[in-house]
């Protein structure tokens, strides 16, 4: 467990939680990334600006931390190109079909004690763990 970083994990989590909570307080919206990006693909009038702004903000926030504090943080993708392609398609299609991802269901929905979100979160965490077990330890 040499990579275990509970303090930075907790601080980062508090910041993510703050962002998600402020989004509800100010704009009355769920800060789910798959929903925010997905809404850009089926644009409705007057519903595009805040989505783009959130994504731009996300990039600026990540970039600011990288430039100011840490330097280029590692992005280690261990999967093969084929697995990356398949994984990307599954994440995109699955989160749209399932109405949410780690942020929308996992943080916002859980915070609303939504039955749908609690079940969705249990399913995607469980299936992801099973997938990692099968790909890393069986095949």
């Amino acid at each position, binding site marked *: 467990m040499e990579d*275990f*970083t509970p303090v930075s994990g907790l601080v980062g989590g508090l910041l993510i*939680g703050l962002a998600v909570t402020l989004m509800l*307080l100010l704009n009355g919206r769920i800060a789910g990334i798959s929903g925010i990006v997905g809404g850009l693909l089926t644009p409705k009038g007057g519903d595009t600006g805040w989505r783009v702004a959130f994504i731009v903000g996300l990039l600026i926030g990540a970039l600011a931390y990288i430039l100011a504090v840490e330097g280029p943080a590692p992005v280690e993708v261990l999967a093969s190109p084929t697995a990356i392609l398949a994984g990307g398609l599954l*994440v995109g299609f699955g*989160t749209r079909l399932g109405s949410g991802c780690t942020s929308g269901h996992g943080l916002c929905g859980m915070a609303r004690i939504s039955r749908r979100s609690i079940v969705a979160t249990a399913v995607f965490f469980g*299936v992801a763990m099973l997938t990692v077990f099968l790909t890393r330890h069986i095949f």
Partner: protein
Amino acid sequence: MASVAGRTLAALGCGLVFGLGLTVSGMMNPAKVIGFLDVAGDWDPTLVFVMGGALLVTLPGYRAILKGRRPVLANSFSLPTKKSLDAPLILGSALFGVGWGLVGFCPGPAVAALGLGSLRYSGSSEQ
């Protein structure tokens, strides 16, 4: 129109804090996410602290905010209305889980890495 500008600015600020949190937490790195999902391997529980930290804020925050009549910059809350546990929810979440487990990217870090990936890789290749 002023409120549209306000909501856009608020979204920018929230996105910024979200992106900051993603990078601080280490969850931008798929290898770290896989380290959590790999319960049978050298398990890295960091993701529990990220989710826990976020829920420490969202659980009481959502409860307090939703007692109010409306958000600060909009006329009403825009919340999901579906209540039933239907097949698309289960199937979609399962497909997402397979993709997440294959690569280690969920949508937030994937979007950030797509936007910043080339910069990060160019930075690290100079070492």
